Every structure is written in C-alpha cells, then in structure tokens.
C-alpha cells in the first residue's frame, strides 16, 4: 500500500523469458484441520516452473499452514500434492527436500558463531575420504552456487558479522546447497529495509532465470506485484482466486484478500478527555549491546483516547512496550501514570496501578499454555482480587470470574478447566483481552491485539476496545495492520529506528503517507506534519 516507498518494479521483464508452461507444483483440494478449526480447506494452486508465484492473504488466512503442508511439516487430511508431475506424500521436511523443495524461513535459523559455509553444510555434510568433512569441496560448491545465482557472500565470514540481507542470502544458499529447485520464501521481506528488498528481488529474478521456481509468501501487496509472475489469494483458509500482477491493483487484491463482509475498524464520536493518563518524557532505553534502542520518546495518552503507533517491525515497538510495562529498565527520561512517576516501579506495581497488557506474542508472554483457563485468568492479576486475598489464592472467585470472561468475551471453550493450549488463537486472544480488561484498568497496552485471530474474534476485540475507550480507558495501540491503526486510533504516530517521527490525524492520513513515514522515506516533511 506504500507505492512510493517500494522498490521499483524495474526488471520484471527479466530476460524477457515468459514462464514456461510446465507445472512444478500443483496442490489440489488441500484441507488441513486443527483442533476446533479448519485451517485450510480445499486449497488449489498451480505453480509453473521458472516463475515467482506469490501467495497472499491476511495474517491468519492460512498461508503458514499451507506452507507447512507443502514443506512436509504436517500432513493434510485431504487433497494431493504433485511435484514435477508425480504425486507425492511428505512425512517430514526431509521428504520435501528430497524432491527439491526448500524453505527459507522468516526467522533465520543460523548459528552466529559459525562461518557461512559451516552454517550451509550443517546437517548436509559431504564426507571426503576416511569420513572427514570435505571442506574444500563444500566451500567450492558454495562459492560456485553464489556466483551462479548472484548470491554474493563471503563463505568464510562469521555469520555474526553479517547484516540481515546477507544472512538471508546464506539461508537461500543453504536451501540451494541441498539441491532445491523449488524455493518457498515465507515473508522474506519482513525483516529487510527497502534497499535490501531490492537486492533480494534481484537475486530472485536471477534464480528464476536459471529455471528455479519460487513460492513467495507475503501480505505486502506492492512487493508482490513487483516480483510475482502470478498471484494466488488465500482468504479464511481457502484459495479465493488468482490474479495477474501486471493488471491487478492493490485495491482489487486487498478486496480479494479481505472479502467484503469484514468488520471495519472505526471509532465513533471522540471520547478523548483532557486527563493525561500516560506521559512519557524523553524516554531512552539501551539495548543489550549498549546501543540506544529508544531515543527521546515523548508522548501523552489521555483518558478515553487511543494512540496508535505505526512502524515497520523491529523499530523499537517491542522495546517501548516492555519499557512501559517495566520489563526493560529506563536509561533516561520519565514515565508517569495518571500523574505518578512509575519509571522505576516493578511490573507488578504497574499492573496493580491499572495497566492492562495484551502482549505481542500471546503464547510466549500472555499465557501459560499448559495451565488451565482459570489459572491463566490469575496470571498477571495474581496479587489482586478476585484472584487472591492477601497471600492466598482465591480459587473459587478466580474460577467464577473466568466463567464471566468466557461468557462476556465469547471465549469458545467447553470448560474453564481445559489448558490454554487447546484453544484456537482467536479464543486465546479473547481470553487475554477479557483478563486485561478486568479490574478496571486505566491504561491498556495493546500490542497487535488482533494478529492471527479470525474475523469474528477481531470484530469482538474491536468492540471491546471501543466500549472501554468510551468508559475512559487510555489505549496504546501497536499494530502492523495499518487499516486497524487508522480506524481504531484517535491519534497516530510513527516509530522509526527507536524514535517517534511525527503525529498524524487518522481522519486525514493515507496509508501511503504512513507507509512513507514508516520507512523513513517521508523524513524531510515529517517536521511539518508534526
């Protein structure tokens, strides 16, 4: 949605060679069920050899599930996979690798303290005479692969010395080294800056011209249109159609992705008051290496106001949330909650003072997966009623209140005694939202509150946010979904490399403007907007 901030589509004409008609991968009627949900149903995709085929869909549309099926990480209940004309069944990724499918994961899986070539051969070692590792042969092959596909990286360098783009090239080399001819790239641009995206796209075109097939997973429409030869759209677990990147518009793609019956994030009349709830002044935070990850953050959120923060992931959002929650120490500046300095308070006392927290990663920070729902109700609220009285837990009150949350927030579960792990993502999130809205919070830190949840849960969570806002709750909303940010915020700001770079009115701002500011392309005029 950020046309001007994106790599130019130059070179789409790569070698003028039109994709040959041969089918590399064909998925027919793939259906994959998980407890409680159908993650994929009746997926049909045809990927032709020597093309870049993009799979697009919203977060939680079922892209990852599909990719895991294709890479043999789990088996579909129904449907068939055909690779190069013959039907295959994958019992593990090893089977997928054997037929030439390779996967480049979104999060790099590299050992920092090993060299590039060591990382590449790890697990696929070639043995020379006498069972010794054939160092020279392996390195020669890696260098040859790098030259052939233009994936330039020094095979002797330590991975810890490499930048993000180079690490990604190592990941791609790793897959090529194992003989892959069909590459799956899962959200490969999520961690890259625009120049690196350009470079990656150059590499991908090179690979394509050598006859390799690329399956490119993304939800960034401009990038998809820039690199793909063909687009398949996935919505709510099923393929809803294909599109030609040369003719389709972002709007058309977005409509296909979202469908038309989706809830719209919007706020009604303003409920913003003059009462400042959260005030940050000159907040600075140091990372583990001593470098500043947050610089001079100053902001105020009032009662009844939602402040949205836009930004490319990894620009300091997580650190900002951790700092407000007291999980990371301040290096400078002050944090006040309703006029009281909480900059040095413990996480527990901040929570007791009325800060609710919907964490970015609900399974890691928000839940004890092996604990029951009522135990998870206590989590984060263990020092307050109804969860406890003094040093004793109040088990019956906690259970009763869990039942209330299940009822009010429509958590679909057969009982409050099942483990949190057995619920679907949307229901886990509703439980968390319900819990964090309990005990009358004054401030809610909502980090990606609707990420990876189904449409129904998304609408319910937005509803709850609106109601709480009307009742005077101050909300800090962080989201990767620009539409959610624009629709649900009273005020918007952008975070870029640890700094807040401007303030925008969600009623007038466009996604393009936000996108430009998020990537720093709008740096020159930010001052005026603010």
């Amino acid at each position, binding site marked *: 949605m950020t046309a001007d901030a994106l790599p130019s589509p130059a070179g789409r004409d790569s070698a003028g060679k039109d994709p040959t008609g041969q089918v590399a991968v064909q998925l027919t009627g793939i259906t994959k069920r*998980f*407890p*409680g*949900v*159908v*993650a994929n*149903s009746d997926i049909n995709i045809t990927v032709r050899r020597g093309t870049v085929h993009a799979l697009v869909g919203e977060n*939680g549309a*079922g892209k990852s*599930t599909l990719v895991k099926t294709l890479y043999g990480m789990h088996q579909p209940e129904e449907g068939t996979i055909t690779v190069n004309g013959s039907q295959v069944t994958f019992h593990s990724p090893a089977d997928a690798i054997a037929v030439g499918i390779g996967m480049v994961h979104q999060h790099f899986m590299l050992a920092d303290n090993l060299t590039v070539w060591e990382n590449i051969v790890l697990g696929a070692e070639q043995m020379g005479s006498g069972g010794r590792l054939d160092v020279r042969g392996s390195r020669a092959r890696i260098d040859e692969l790098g030259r052939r596909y233009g994936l330039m990286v020094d095979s002797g360098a330590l991975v810890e010395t490499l930048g993000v783009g180079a690490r990604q090239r190592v990941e791609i080399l790793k897959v090529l080294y194992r003989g892959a001819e069909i590459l799956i790239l899962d959200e490969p641009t999520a961690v890259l800056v625009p120049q690196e995206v350009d470079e990656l796209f150059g590499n991908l075109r090179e690979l394509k011209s050598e006859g390799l097939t690329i399956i490119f997973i993304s939800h960034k429409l401009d990038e998809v249109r820039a690199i793909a030869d063909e687009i398949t759209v996935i919505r*709510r*677990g099923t393929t809803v159609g294909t599109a030609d990147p040369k003719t389709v518009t972002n709007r058309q793609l977005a409509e296909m992705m979202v469908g038309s019956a989706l809830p719209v994030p919007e706020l009604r009349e303003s409920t913003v008051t003059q009462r400042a709830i959260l005030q940050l002044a000159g907040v600075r935070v140091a990372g583990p290496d001593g470098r500043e990850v947050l610089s001079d953050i100053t902001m105020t959120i009032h009662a009844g106001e939602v402040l949205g923060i836009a930004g490319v992931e990894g620009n300091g959002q997580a650190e900002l949330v951790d700092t407000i*929650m*007291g*999980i990371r120490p301040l290096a400078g500046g002050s944090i006040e909650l309703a006029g009281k300095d909480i900059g040095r308070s*413990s*996480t*527990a*006392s*901040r*929570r*007791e003072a009325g800060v609710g*927290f919907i*964490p970015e990663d609900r399974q*890691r*920070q*928000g*839940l*004890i*997966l*092996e*604990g029951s729902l009522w*135990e998870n109700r*206590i*989590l*984060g*609220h*263990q*020092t307050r009623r109804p969860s*406890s009285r003094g*040093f*004793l*837990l109040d*088990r019956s009150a906690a259970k009763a209140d869990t039942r209330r949350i299940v009822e009010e927030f429509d958590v*679909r*579960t*057969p*009982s409050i*005694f*099942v*483990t949190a*792990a*057995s*619920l*679907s*993502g*949307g229901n886990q999130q509703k439980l968390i939202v319900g819990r964090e809205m309990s005990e009358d919070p004054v401030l809610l830190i909502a980090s990606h509150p609707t990420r*990876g949840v*189904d*449409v129904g849960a998304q609408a319910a969570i937005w509803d709850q946010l609106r109601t709480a806002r009307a009742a005077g709750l101050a909300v800090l909303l962080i989201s990767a979904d620009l539409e959610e940010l624009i629709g649900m915020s009273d005020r918007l700001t952008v975070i870029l490399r640890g700094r807040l770079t401007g303030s925008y009115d969600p009623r007038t701002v466009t996604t393009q403007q936000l996108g430009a500011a998020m990537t720093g392309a709008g740096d020159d005029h930010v001052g005026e907007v603010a």
Partner: protein
Amino acid sequence: MTGSRTRRILLGAAAPVGALLVAFLITSVLLLLTGSNPFDAFGAMASAFGRTRIILGTINQTAVYYLAAVAVAIGFKMNLFNIGVDGQYRLAAMLSAAVAGASFMSNLPGPLRIAITLIVAMAVGAFWAGIAALLKVTRGVSEVISTIMLNAIATFVVAYLLTPQMLAVLEGNNISTPRITDGGQVSVITFEGSTTPLFTLGILAVIVGAIYALVLSRTVFGFSIKATGLSESAAIASGISVNRMIVSAMLLSGAVAGLIGMPELLNGSAASYSLNFPTGIGFTGIAVALLGRNHPVGMVFSALLWAALDSSANALQGVGVARELVTIMQGVIVLSVVVAYEFVRRYRLVLEARDVARALAVQTPEAVAV
C-alpha cells in the same frame, strides 16, 4: 469433567507403572543372563517384608527420601536443578549436630534444644543453597554447575570441621561431633522383635509435604513458582520477579534439604554426625522427585518404592544375587519413567485438544480459519 479426571489419574499412573514393569523386565533378563532365577530373587525381596525390622526401616527411609525429594522438587517446579541438595544436607547435618552436641545446650530445656537444632539445620541448608541462588541472579551462573561445586566444597568443609581441633571429638577410632546428651534427642517408638525403632521425626516429612502441597496450590507465591517454571517470559510479563522467585525457591529448597538429616541425628542411636552418616541422599532425592513428578502425593509413593527396594536389597544375597541389582533396577526405573512421562504429557495435550475440538464442533459446526 469426572470422566476426564479419571482419565487424568489413569494417565498419570500409567507412566510410573509402565516404567516399573520395564524395570522388572530388564532386571529379569539380567538375572537370567547371569544364571539366576528372577522369581527366586524377587521372591526373596518380597519375603524380606515379613520382618518388622525391614518394614520399620522402610518407613524411616521413606521419610528421609521424601524430604530429599521435596527439596529437589521445589527447584524443579521452577526449572531450577538443585543438584546441591546432598551438600546442603550434609553440611546442615554436621553443623546442627555440632550445635546440638555442644555443652551449653545441656542446660536448656529439651524442646528448645530440638527446635534450635532444627532451625540451625534449615538455616545452614538455606545458606548453602543461597550461595548458588545469589550467583545465579547476580552473575548468571547456572545453578547446575554451582551446586555441583558447592557439593564438593561441602565435602571438604565437613572434613575440615570434623577434626578434634575444630568441632569433633575422637572416641577410640571413631571421630564424630560430640554426642547429643539426654534430652537433646527425640524419643523413638520401639517394637517387639525389631532392633530398628520407628523414627518419630518421620513426621517432619508429613509436615513438609503438607506445607509443600498447600503453598503450591493455594498461595500466590506457589502460583508464581509454577508460572515461572512453566513460562518464564509469561511470568515476567505478569509482574512476577523471576530473580526473587529464584532466590526464594533456592532458600526453601536448601532449608528442606537441611531437614533431611534430622531423623538420623535426633532419632538415631549414634546421636552425632560422623563419617558413618549416610551420603548421597540428595541425589536419591532427584530420582524420587522425578519419579513422583514433583507431586506431593506422587513423591510419597516413589519415596516408599525407593526405600522398599533399598531395604530389601540385602535379602538378595540369600539367594546368591548381588544387592547391586537393586541399584540397576532403580536406574532403569528413572530412565524409563523420564521417557514415559514426556510421552504421556504429549499424548495428554493431543487428547485434550481433540476433546475441545469435538466439544466445540457441536456448538459451532462451521468454525473456519485460524
């Protein structure tokens, strides 16, 4: 939910019972290979329990093993591996014995002397474990490494202190702390026809077990311990101070470790700490806690099993089998139970997810998308 409750208990019991069967099977094969009859061997072990002495010895030993297991389990609940229970126990037993046997104690009333002994034992155990906790929270030293080292250090400290120049007295060839005089010990219950009495301080195990169960299930502190053990990141986000929990858990673990030697010291006939004092109980505690899954009741059964195996080991010699067979059995039990528990844990999660899905499918037949 009664159906799933029954299933939970059945599944929970399946692993240890299965591990036991595997252990019997493997030891039977071993016996056959070495030319002995398994039925004779197990029969001899079983018939040992016809004697009151063996039964009483088993009960006494169960209490000691249970205390050791709780000490280990407190750490396990938080994913802390306190391997140092043995060192904590020995140092605590030695120093509390020295205090209990000290001459000034003779003038104090009996209950006070006993109370002082117990408190010193707990304090020493907690102190020794506290060193590891402090190293962990301030310097990030793994408690596994530091407690192993502290075990070795404890051995040397005890050897150093157990000399006539320091805290010990030499009686004939035997060197020990001064004998606790009358009134400083707790009386035992004797039985007709048994040289072994019933150690009344076994009650310590009952008390500690009850407190352990209550704290874990009923208190905010216990909740915080469990939460930290299950997901440290979630605990931190929930305002639980992980460092404080580490220190508290290690101190408590050490304090319980300090109690391990008390039945032997205050009920035993030697009434002193000497080189004859049992060692390695802290390590047995690890096995017992593993087998009992850190559960207050589960560990009763596993401590009882361990004690029974130990007590009946000598009977093997009657049928010409080395008593070390029992050690092999115990080893096999631990190995197989660790595997079995993980297996059952995963199976249980899958079963539950399926149940939830089935229950919800009735409510919402067309739930689609993740």
